[in-house]
């Protein structure tokens, strides 16, 4: 008796054999290596990132030092009347002083732990209810992709997935040194950082380009349908000051 896996693979092989000549000819018609970027290269990566992030509906800020970055964050938080936050572990966000700022603003840090193996569904739901009204999610970011205004965010221990997703407002801190030109370059940088199989140690990577949006009603653009309705990106460029 054969397993479904064996049956399916046998059917697939039979199919390939019928059309092998065509498929192999087609696959050889172009190289498969991705271009590092697909738009004409901009002179100023940071300016391109800012422009593209804005085009995608995000709010980027260029901050020359940690102090400026904290100022910007403080302003965003007070404008939104934020009182509770989901954050990554502070060690995972490249901005010293963030914890002190949240304490000083009396913003409660909620426990982002949702998955505890062995817990019941009711316990999981309770964890989710505890964070569902968080005002803001604050995370770091692995990379910024200049030509699309995209953040690359690898999650893992101390870096919750829901931090970037659950609250109506998301603030991400991105060191300017982590800007790359295009998607191909971004994957190269991720492999450099996490090894050739970037998912060996990490289960989740998200590329975020602007705030959550939909055009499903009369193709009218509306933000915040499921994820954050506002995305603020703090680009920390300490070299700019020097």
């Amino acid at each position, binding site marked *: 008796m054969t397993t479904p896996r064996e049956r399916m693979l046998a059917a697939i092989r039979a199919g*390939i054999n019928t*059309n092998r000549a065509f498929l192999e000819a087609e696959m050889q018609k172009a190289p498969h290596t991705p271009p590092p970027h697909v738009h004409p290269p901009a002179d100023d990566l940071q300016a391109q990132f800012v422009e593209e992030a804005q085009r995608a509906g995000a709010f980027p800020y260029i901050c020359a030092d940690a102090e400026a970055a904290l100022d910007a964050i403080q302003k965003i938080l007070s404008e939104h009347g934020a009182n509770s936050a989901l954050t990554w572990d502070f060690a995972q966000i490249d901005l010293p002083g963030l914890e002190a700022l949240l304490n000083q603003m009396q913003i409660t840090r909620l426990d982002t732990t949702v*998955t505890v193996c062995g817990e019941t569904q009711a316990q999981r739901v309770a964890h989710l209810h505890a964070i569902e009204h968080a005002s803001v999610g604050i995370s770091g970011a692995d990379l910024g992709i200049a030509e699309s205004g995209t953040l690359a965010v690898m999650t893992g221990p101390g870096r919750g997935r829901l931090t970037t997703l659950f609250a109506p407002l998301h603030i991400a801190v991105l060191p300017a040194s982590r800007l790359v030109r295009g998607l191909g370059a971004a994957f190269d940088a991720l492999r450099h950082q996490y090894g050739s199989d970037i998912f060996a140690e990490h289960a989740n990577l998200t590329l975020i*380009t602007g705030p959550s949006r939909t055009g499903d009603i009369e193709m009218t653009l509306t933000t915040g*349908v499921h994820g954050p309705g506002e995305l603020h990106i703090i680009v920390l460029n300490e070299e700019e000051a020097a």
Partner: protein
Amino acid sequence: MATQMLPFYDRVEDALQNSTLQHALERNMPRFVALRAQALNKLIDEAALRDQARAIRAKSLARLDELLTRLADTVEARGGHVCWATDGKAAGQYIAELAQRQAVKSIVKSKSMASEEIHLNAQLEAHSLEVIETDLGEYIIQLSGETPSHIIAPAIHMTRQEIGQLFQEKLGMEPTEDIPTMTRTARRVLRQRFVQADMGISGVNFGIAESGGMVLVTNEGNADLTTSVPRIHVAIMGIERVVESLDDLAVMLQVLARSATGQKLSVYTTFLSGPTRPGEPDGPEEFHLILLDNGRSRILGSAYAEALMCIRCGACLNACPVYQSIGGHAYGGVYSGPIGSVISPLLQPDVPDVHQLPYASTLCGACQEACPVRIALPDMLLRLRGDAVQAGKVAPGEQAAMTAWQATMNNPALYRAGGTMASIITRLVGGREGVLKQLPPPLAGWTQHRDFPTFAKQSFSERWAAQHGTDEEPQ
């Protein structure tokens, strides 16, 4: 009766008479087309990128057995489970049994064409499982009991007034025509569904063989919530959606969003490799990947293998003047537009009049031109027509007419005589004005919308022969 169950011609007539739909198509289709063109025009080398994308899709198919094996092995090594589903029933069965075993009560789902192809919701509802669609467009049509009318804009056929009314009735929203209010209402209601759900079901845009990564692309973020909030994540992937590597994916992602909506990247492009890892604060405890065949391996060995290169961007729908005229529902199946006319007869043979779909095209080629991987859709539509004729699916009298046509065209004397006869008759009926206002069936359709010219008094070849003499007649 739902539109989808009607005969094809009635579905078309319904669509053409539906003024809401006509208004939506007229307003929105040109926007999709323009956004796509603008996005692709800005690339350094659009043609080269599309050539690459096509070559990569061809590689995925040429090495499908090997890549799927690698994908499945990697997923299992990362603690995920893999189900090889030969058909839709096997997929539904697997999920239903999993849900029962895990005492699942509530399921949230992000948009997945593969799951709609196999009527997964109906299969699960038959097991008393509740499935909530979370893509806003899909949620709207689920509430209204319809089916998607467009691959990437499922509720494009509805007005804001209709949707407002629906939300008032089903969600208790205060009367409004304000779209952000409707969106906020949906967010609030669906967020509770996410929190309560014990299982999330998603589709897969691409599966990466080398790392076992599932790639999901949305603008709303509903796939992210579907795959990270509930305890169990089930991903359904058509077997053709595999790519070998992150590098291959880097090319495919560059054409997907641009072709679909004109965005450089969709808002959320999410990669998931197995269940949550030790030490992670969130993510699913269990991950199940369903590899769905449901006729795809048969297509791979047929004259339609190229259709499996499709990445479901919807560009061919938007570009198609027939789709622009009738929208998605008239196609009857889950897949509409030119790609739907090719794959519905192959993947959803139970759609009423499915053999008619390949005839719903002028073969103008706009679809192939728009397709990011240049699928030769018109050639395949033509082949499907040939298959339908070979299978005897022809209108009464059609075969006789074609036999007569062949005899006429292959016999110059008969051809001349036929032409002379047509000339005499049409000029007699057409009279001084020189046009025919009404043709008899089966040609009557022509004169419903336009006049028909009379044949010439003397054909070109007769005139030429009269002026230049005749060569020896070849046979």
